[in-house]
């Protein structure tokens, strides 16, 4: 008992550190992006061709240097966060909601419902992603909302499969049987007994997927399927800076760091949230 207590107190300290770091990183980034219009009224578009490819930390005007067109990297990183975060966060939230719902229904009710839903998911998984993207966005047209919609449609499957798997193992647990024995109805069992118990892995997958989708947006933009390439986004900046990597590393490294810190912050928050939701506090890392 004493050993367990020692462990849990150490864990609690670590937890609060996780929370502070997570809020600082993810929260700071979100705030900066939200107020980017105030900070950089030009939207990171103004060019200063005389100061092109200024290295970072050398002038106050361009603390993080400039890109090949002389645009301020700091401004573009912060303004670019708008599209990246919007796409990353909302596509994941949408996919989680849809996927979790389908996974819960398929895993809990089994039978023909499950067969239809899961076969459909398998078929979708079998289609090459890029092909799907070209098809989809060619029909819908491009734009931030279309990209988010497409990502939701393309990615709900992973959540549905994850949730269904967890539900399958949960539905045979004795506390579910015991709830049924008491007379609890199906809807209530799903919402109050199954959903809280599958949240842990979903949260982890979610936070990882945000990073993926930020990069995915840039790939789609690169293919001409995404947002207007002139509007800055982290993924787009990474792609632009690639050719200058040996001579002007800062052009791509700073947006890369922005992605990394955001994702790290979200991951820490995700871990913290998962442990907050788990009263046993014994979820192993």
């Amino acid at each position, binding site marked *: 008992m004493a050993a367990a207590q020692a462990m849990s107190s150490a864990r609690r300290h670590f937890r609060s550190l996780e929370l502070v770091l997570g809020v600082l990183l993810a929260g700071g980034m979100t705030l900066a992006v939200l107020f980017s219009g105030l900070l950089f009224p030009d939207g990171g578009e103004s060019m200063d061709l005389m100061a092109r490819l200024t290295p970072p930390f050398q002038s106050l005007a361009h603390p993080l240097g400039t890109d090949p067109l002389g645009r301020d990297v700091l401004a573009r990183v912060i303004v670019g966060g708008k599209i990246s975060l919007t796409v990353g966060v909302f596509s994941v939230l949408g996919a989680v909601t849809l996927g979790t719902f389908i996974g819960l229904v398929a895993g809990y009710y089994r039978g023909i419902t499950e067969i239809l839903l899961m076969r459909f998911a398998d078929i979708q998984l079998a289609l090459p992603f890029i092909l799907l993207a070209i098809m989809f966005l060619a029909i819908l047209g491009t734009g931030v909302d279309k990209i988010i919609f497409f990502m939701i449609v393309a990615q709900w499957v992973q959540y549905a499969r994850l949730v269904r798997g967890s539900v399958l193992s949960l539905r045979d647990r004795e506390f579910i049987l015991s709830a049924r024995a*008491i007379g609890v109805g199906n809807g209530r069992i799903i919402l109050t007994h199954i959903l809280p118990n599958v949240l842990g892995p979903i949260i982890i997958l979610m936070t990882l997927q945000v990073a993926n989708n930020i990069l995915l947006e840039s790939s789609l933009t690169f293919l001409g399927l995404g947002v207007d390439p002139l509007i800055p986004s982290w993924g787009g900046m990474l792609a632009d800076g690639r050719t200058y990597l040996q001579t002007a590393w800062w052009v791509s490294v700073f947006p890369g760091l922005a992605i990394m810190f955001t994702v790290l912050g979200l991951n820490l928050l995700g871990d913290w949230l998962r442990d907050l939701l788990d009263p*046993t506090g014994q979820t192993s890392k």
Partner: protein
Amino acid sequence: MSDKANRQSEALLSVRSLSVAFGTGDEAFKAVKDVSFDVQPGKTLAVVGESGSGKSVTSLAIMRLTDYTGGRITGGQVLFRPDGGEAIDLVKASDARLREIRGNDIAMIFQEPMTSLNPVFTVGNQIAETLILHQGLNGREARLRARDLLQKVRLPDADRLLDRYPHQLSGGMRQRVMIAMALACNPKLLIADEPTTALDVTIQAQILNIIRDLQAEMGTAVIFITHDMGVVAEMADDVVVMWKGEKVEQAPVRDVFAAPQHPYTRALLSAVPRLGAFTGQPLPKRTPVMVMDGGVAKPVGGTHEQDTADYTKPILQVEKLTTRFDVGKTFFGRVTHRVHAVEEVSFDIYPGETLALVGESGSGKSTIGRTLQQLVEPTGGTVRFDGRDMEAMSQAERRRLRQEIQYIFQDPFASLDPRHTVGYSIAEPIIVHGLIKDSKERTRRVHELLEQVGLQPQHAKRYPHEFSGGQRQRICIARALASNPKLVIADESVSALDVSIQAQIINLLMELQEKRRLSYLFITHDMAVVEKISHRVAVMYLGQIVELGSRRAIFENPQHSYTRKLLAAVPIADPQRERAKVRIEGEIPSPVRPVGQEPAIHRMREVAPGHWVAIEADSLRGAA
């Protein structure tokens, strides 16, 4: 004194002031504190205690297996004399030396035979591995020897068994394979950690017999770790009683039972249900339980006759209930095999009465409970609750039935949702059935229920993992009572608990029965518990009731051969008692049958008023 010194030098194993801790620094948890005992060659030492007493950790520490479970030996010696010569201190021995000793001089059997056998190797290969490793035999010799060993543990058809995989064997057979493996190298010492706890009683009796016979034959010393005082009485020469990591008593087995010295031993023995303790009494009886309170054993509760049953009109009538499950289908979905879990079972339960359903695994006793609770659909038969036919009920009536019948599961931890407070879990039936709308009123009711089961109102805000096993079962009982049921189905509800806790929970159930005139369907495999709690008993075998009668009739005048066999298999917590001469043999047959092969339904005859016995066909007599 010189005699004692002499004994010590002869001891095969001397544990001296052994201490084991988990964790480090000030936060370290001392699982074993300063424990000493000797094991004499060829003798059996039983180490008894309840969960958390440190008995298993002690056994692991002897082989220094605690190194692999996060524990540390913080002091003491474990002196092992394999040939009566120079003693080796296993605490200080090198890893290489220890590997030579493990499995060769000291062997171990664990509780769960399924998890201790590797599922991807055949039985023969696993036994042979030990032989090749320690005895340097080649493959063919090892296989021959493995076959001998399987015959030694009385496994029929040893030749074919060598090529079977663990999952193809029953639990009892797997445990015999484990014993065969443990004995492969003629160890001097065998450590058996709860080797029969997971097995049915008739299988347990067989395994205990085998261990005893082989011990006599091979002269092996045995350390027998168990919580079951009945097993202790049957197996041990000497007993070490452990409590909270310390040895509180050590004595020859007769002395421990006849004149226990330490208050804890006295409390433990008073809590052990003894078969035959209620002979001659017409009604079940509540008796005081000794509870440890600050190092002193205090009696709790009084003696009450449980005269609660009202035999005018039954609350539940079950007639020819049949439940089967389809298993094994062809590619085209045609069913090839069925589990005949319950076959034409009939019984009644009266208000305020406890009917015990006893039987071993596969007897269908739990399926009956689950069918009554509408967790499983019956295949046939009728169930009437309060005179209403369940099949004719509307959806709403069926829901109401779930309020009037409640179920308590075996494992209280598994049956509580870990994500909700226990207060929520207890309130759930009230919410679901809309019994109390006002949330303040509901909270008050939850607090009241917690108090009724012997917990405190402030416990409502805690989560299941913050409670001990006994407390959790109290929570499950509170939850079952929340909807004011008339019938409570208790499915092995006290089987997983330590005996002292078990005795308290049984008393609680009986007290609640008296206060609320509850009827219980008490499903269990434990005959001694049945004798204590039930008014009437139904004995089940392979999905059918073979004997049904009053508690006295079943225990004092058992008629069916299976009932007798079951009673004979129960280990009795009395070392003075003659060991049963009857040798129990045979596995429990499987209830899975190919489609079209229906089991024969026994006809029952009434041998005395209310005492029904199945007429035995020769085939059944052969099996039982």
